[in-house]
């Protein structure tokens, strides 16, 4: 599953680091890196936390590989 987390982090004012996002979401930075690189698909609760953090619908952040 692809996602736009890296772009959304960069678009924030001020930009947010992986470490800061990890702290906000109560996960490790390694998890954020793994999600951004598509190595790990987050659970629905974590995906909703990410969506709430960026104030966007989930489908604006995560995309199906085939889409």
């Amino acid at each position, binding site marked *: 599953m692809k996602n736009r987390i890296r772009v959304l982090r960069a678009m924030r004012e001020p930009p947010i680091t992986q470490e800061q996002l990890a702290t906000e979401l109560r*996960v490790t930075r390694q998890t954020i*890196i*793994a999600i951004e*690189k598509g*190595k*790990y698909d987050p659970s629905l609760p974590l995906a909703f936390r990410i969506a709430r953090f960026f104030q966007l619908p989930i489908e604006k952040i995560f995309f199906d590989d085939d889409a």
Partner: protein
Amino acid sequence: MKQNTFYLLIGILGVLLVAVLWLSIQRSMPILIQVAFLAAVVVIYAARRTVHGTIDDERSSVITQHAAVATLGIFWVVFFVLSLGSVVLEFSRPLGIHFPPPPPPFPQPGDAGPHFGNLGLMQLALLGLMIVLYGAFRIYYAHKFGDWESDEE
């Protein structure tokens, strides 16, 4: 307690357990190592609750789950195969079939039949196999789920 202190504690307990095992064998008192092992496990579980500064997030849980399931998937087959062999030996004995003595370094009792000590050694070997398999699968799934991915930040 810091995570490194916890790992140090595990190492110290491991060394102590080896010493107690040796003492237990010398004095032929299995209760020594049994009580010591139970006490060590209680200490480790109690100490783990006091470890701080670590985040146990969902990805590490997923890695643990995958590694445990994969380990169990192999372990039960190996366990079943060895158990089947033991059962065949045990049930063949009344038929008067001659068994070869167990190969060294296993103890060679006067009676070449199944021996309780041999069973313990086999169980320890199986537990060792389980630990090795679990460690290997943890490394594999940690790699698969991006544990060693680096980034420019």
